[in-house]
């Protein structure tokens, strides 16, 4: 499986994401924000956490309009897989690849701790190696993770089983405690918690491994 990790000025989880993907067996290339194309044969684009463009204007807003963004959007339109973690999730909503928006945490504080999550659906390449309803622990580190979508969008997400992860208890004010959502074709996932930070025994937890391994298993050439 060939993966591209996008690097923006201010990305700071790009290498962690690359390490986690490589450990799961992916062939990983880094893609610079000024590139206007992905390497041919890219199966998965991973958009990392961090503070792209200093979070200026809105988190992810500038990154979502950078040259690489058009290539990522075209990749998604072709049915390619895209994973956005934390700032990457914000970027994907700003690109319009995922519905809703990430707002300032309801408590206004930056939240940096390990969160208990529930896997809300196992029906995706990202979550197929988890059991539906399984509890996992992923670290969160964000100031703007308060997921918002209008009632109509939420009804659609629920009806189409597109809520991927929820917080086990209210964390940041997210509507329905949503921590991650899938696109309509289930090939784009955005989530605020960091699976790449629990992908090695040295991290103190390995709950995130199943996500990367699941992707590699599903996207490996048949």
């Amino acid at each position, binding site marked *: 499986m060939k993966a591209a990790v996008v690097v923006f000025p201010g990305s700071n989880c790009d290498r962690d994401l690359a390490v986690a993907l490589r450990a799961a067996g992916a062939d990983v290339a880094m893609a610079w924000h000024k590139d206007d194309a992905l390497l041919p044969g890219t199966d998965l684009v991973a958009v990392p956490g961090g503070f792209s463009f200093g979070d200026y*204007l*809105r988190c992810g*807003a500038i990154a979502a*309009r950078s040259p690489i963004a058009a290539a990522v959007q075209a990749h998604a339109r072709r049915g390619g897989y895209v994973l956005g973690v934390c700032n990457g999730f914000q970027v994907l*909503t*700003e690109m319009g690849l995922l*519905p*809703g*928006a990430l*707002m*300032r*945490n*309801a*408590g*206004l504080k930056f939240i940096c701790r390990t969160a208990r999550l529930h896997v809300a659906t196992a029906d995706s390449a990202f979550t197929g190696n988890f059991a539906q309803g399984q509890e996992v622990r992923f670290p969160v580190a964000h100031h703007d993770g*308060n997921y*918002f*979508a*209008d009632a109509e969008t939420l009804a659609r997400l629920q009806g189409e089983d597109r809520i991927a992860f929820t917080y086990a208890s209210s964390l940041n*004010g997210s509507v329905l405690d949503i921590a991650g959502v899938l696109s309509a074709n289930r090939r784009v996932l955005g989530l605020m918690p960091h699976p790449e930070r629990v992908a090695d025994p040295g991290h103190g937890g390995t709950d995130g491994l199943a996500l990367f391994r699941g992707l590699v298993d599903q996207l490996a050439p048949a």
Partner: protein
Amino acid sequence: MKATVTVMLKTGVLDPQGEAVRRALGSLGFEGVGGVRQGKVIELDLAAQDRATAETEVRAMCERLLANTVIESYRIELA
């Protein structure tokens, strides 16, 4: 031509920062502040000379970058 864009969270979208400001005003003794909404102001210096062109341009800028219309509304003033 100069344009001033005011971006605010839409009505119905909870504004935790505005709410924190409201509480802080209350703790300073400013009574009677029913609600506070916090937004941002963006000033643009435009090459366009006529109003209609400027308005069309700025509207496109708002839709494509300056506002996230999922959660925000915007208002354009030209001078």
